[in-house]
């Protein structure tokens, strides 16, 4: 492993940006204050990824020189930097797309948006690098508060109700998670993942604590049947906010679930993994069908998020080996996470630009869009390709890996669900595309080309993941298995 301060600055740079926004609120427009911090955070994430790839070792930092179990460490392993890169690219895309020539100084919407974007970024980087169960909790709370405020940003009654529901779900999830943390501490007096890995036993207290934490996190990641808060929240938020929420925010609790079951207490494939996969399968089938029936584009995309989150949970029984990161199920699940992140960000941003252009997002009235906004529509179509799992796209390779893993594991029902989910996704994506390609001549407000370009770039990122070779992706295995820090390296 390599000692590096970069994970610390990746968490704190957006915090510095938040402070700068508060300090300069009265003088400088918020997007101008935030922009350098967005750039710096992007640079940090990319350079961390570069370092991890070149050294083939995780970047580790023990804060204040205090080692676990007393102290806290940040550890950017292959999975961590992979997700941080996803976050950085999506955030940059969102920032470019939300960069509109503004008049006047600070307004409620604009200031809050940029401040919350930075807050989310810090929380996500922390969630991806933290190694301590309570540190995760802090990351989740930062994430939830910023996300709830983003949902309510439009200030309409519907958005406020959606935000309130979201907050109550998030709080319930937090409290369950915290209860689990308390039990773990009572059992082991250790909260550090690597330390716990060495001593954790599958006894009643530990399993109950894990179950509590997992259910709490499922509520936050909106796994069926704890998903009811998500569609109104993600559809009610402003489009750039929805992009961050759907692409990134629901992924952080998922990653923590993954770390709990792979890093904290690795168990042979058994009931918990099967239950998680079962719920994931239910999410794919039920929510895809509901997505098919939505009249509004943003609601359709939100239900699609629920289905795509379901795929992530399929990976749990598909990593049967003693080193799950060498199984294709691991690679498939994490590639699904990233390709969905890019695709969904592109889709929500595209829906936002469509709304700006047409003044509505009713699926049935999208006619004529193809001619008037070809770039946006192309982005939407490419992102849709990835959701359906058609080649060449990240979604294709992710689902193919999961499918192969399911066949190898003999889990035919999972294979069937993956195929059915792809077909259902094809139905709802093509329905929207079909309407958009239809004739029509609606009045269209102009949308700057660079904003459409940013959306297209994100969609192309989803496409690019499709060119990863069809085998366990080496980056995602860097820094595994987790090793305890014995002395200050």
């Amino acid at each position, binding site marked *: 492993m390599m000692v590096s301060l970069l994970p610390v600055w990746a968490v704190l740079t957006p*915090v510095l940006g938040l402070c700068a926004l508060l300090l300069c609120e009265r003088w400088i427009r918020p997007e101008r204050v935030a922009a350098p911090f967005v750039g710096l955070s992007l640079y940090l994430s990319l350079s961390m990824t570069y370092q991890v790839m070149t050294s083939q070792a995780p970047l580790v930092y023990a804060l*204040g020189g205090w080692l676990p179990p007393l102290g806290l460490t940040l550890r950017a392993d292959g999975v961590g930097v992979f997700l941080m890169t996803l976050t950085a690219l999506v955030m940059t895309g969102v920032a470019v797309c939300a960069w509109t020539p503004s008049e006047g100084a600070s*307004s409620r919407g604009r200031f809050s948006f940029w401040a919350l974007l930075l807050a989310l970024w810090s929380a996500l980087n922390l969630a991806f690098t933290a190694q301590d169960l309570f540190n995760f909790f802090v990351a989740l709370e930062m994430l939830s508060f910023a996300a*709830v405020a983003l949902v309510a940003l439009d200030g309409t009654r519907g958005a406020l109700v959606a935000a309130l529901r979201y907050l109550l779900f998030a709080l319930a999830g937090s409290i369950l998670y915290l209860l689990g943390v308390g039990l773990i501490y009572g059992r082991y007096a250790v909260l550090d993942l690597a330390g716990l890995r060495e001593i954790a036993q599958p006894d009643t207290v530990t399993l109950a604590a894990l179950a509590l934490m997992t259910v709490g996190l499922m509520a936050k990641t909106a796994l069926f049947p704890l998903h009811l808060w998500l569609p109104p929240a993600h559809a009610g938020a402003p489009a750039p906010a929805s992009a961050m929420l759907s692409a990134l925010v629901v992924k952080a609790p998922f990653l923590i679930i993954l770390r709990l079951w792979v890093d904290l207490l690795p168990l042979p494939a058994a009931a918990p993994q099967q239950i998680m996969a079962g719920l994931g399968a239910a999410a794919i089938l039920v929510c895809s069908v509901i997505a098919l029936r939505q009249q509004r584009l943003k609601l359709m995309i939100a239900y699609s998020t629920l289905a795509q989150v379901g795929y992530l949970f399929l990976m749990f029984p598909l990593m049967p080996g003693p080193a799950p990161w060498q199984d294709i199920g691991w690679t498939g699940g994490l590639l699904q996470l990233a390709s969905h992140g890019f695709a969904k960000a592109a889709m929500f941003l595209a829906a936002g630009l469509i709304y700006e252009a047409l003044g509505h997002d009713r699926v049935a009235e999208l006619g004529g869009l193809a001619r008037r906004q070809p770039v946006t529509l192309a982005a939407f179509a490419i992102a849709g390709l990835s959701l359906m799992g058609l080649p060449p796209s990240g979604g294709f390779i992710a689902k193919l890996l999961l499918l192969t893993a399911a066949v190898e594991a003999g889990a035919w029902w999972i294979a069937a669900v993956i195929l059915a989910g792809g077909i259902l996704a094809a139905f709802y994506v093509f329905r929207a595309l079909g309407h958009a390609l239809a004739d029509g001549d609606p009045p269209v407000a102009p949308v700057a080309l660079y904003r459409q370009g940013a959306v297209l770039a994100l969609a192309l990122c989803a496409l690019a993941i499709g060119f990863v070779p069809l085998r366990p992706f080496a980056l995602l295995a860097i820094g595994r298995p987790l090793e305890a820090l014995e002395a200050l390296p």
Partner: protein
Amino acid sequence: MTELLALTLALPLLAGALFIVATASTRAALFGFFAFGLFLALAWVALDAVDVALTEAAIGGGATGLLLLRLNGRMRHPVSLGEPAGPRLKIAAGLLAALVTLALGALLLALPEPAPSLAAATVEPLPTLGIGNPVAAVLIAYRALDTLLEIVVLLIAVVGLRALGTDRGWGGRPVPWPEGGPSPALVFLARLLIPAGLVFAAYLFWVGADAPGGKFQASTLLAALWLLAIMAGLAPAPSSGGRWTGRALAIGPLAFIAAGAIGIAAAGSFLAWPEPVAKPMIIAVELALAVSIVVALVLLVAGPPERETGR
């Protein structure tokens, strides 16, 4: 003997909780919540966690209760998230609650004996930090990142609260409170308590390094005094977009991060406290944090800005 004490504290706690849930009147439930908070703080004293007891009394019971009481006064109609529960749902909920209680109780009884502990590990480095209160050491040294980010959580909550305000009130102040003007008794109380409270807050802050107390407890007390002054009409609520508000909110995290960076140069690690000046540095950072916490707490209780400023 201690069992008896525990019982005399635990029973009112449960009775209070049952009252809060069972009473039909929201206002009665809120007053019950204050009493509950007081008993909870006493329970923390009985658990030998005086630092937590102070925080619970100040934030958990006090500030939260005040916040909800104010909310209840301002709400024109209750916000409902569903239908009133029928008898069937009540029975089901009661069974579920009993089941959860039993399961959780059983889990607690199943915890290992003797309990694993980090207590010894927290005490050992105390001399190098120059502070004597191990809880303070956990907060400011061993788990300093948690504390730093917790202040950020407060900041995010303030940003979120402002985001939830109206466009009209952006950059303004919260609505005055109470709306009919303060009662003379309150003004009298404020004049009497504020000087005494300031002295006590300074004492709490200073003693926190070595004995129970510290920046959170002192900051909450200061925030409570400020709120009292606002309620009594003796001081204005902070203007949410104001120059000084922004600076006050940012100074805590900035000072903490700056101290962390100094730690790299002077002690070889981010957020490490260089030994000879550990204590003065810690005090300085805690002062800056206290400023941010006080302003954040006051803003969070006072609510989103609703009045326009005259700017």
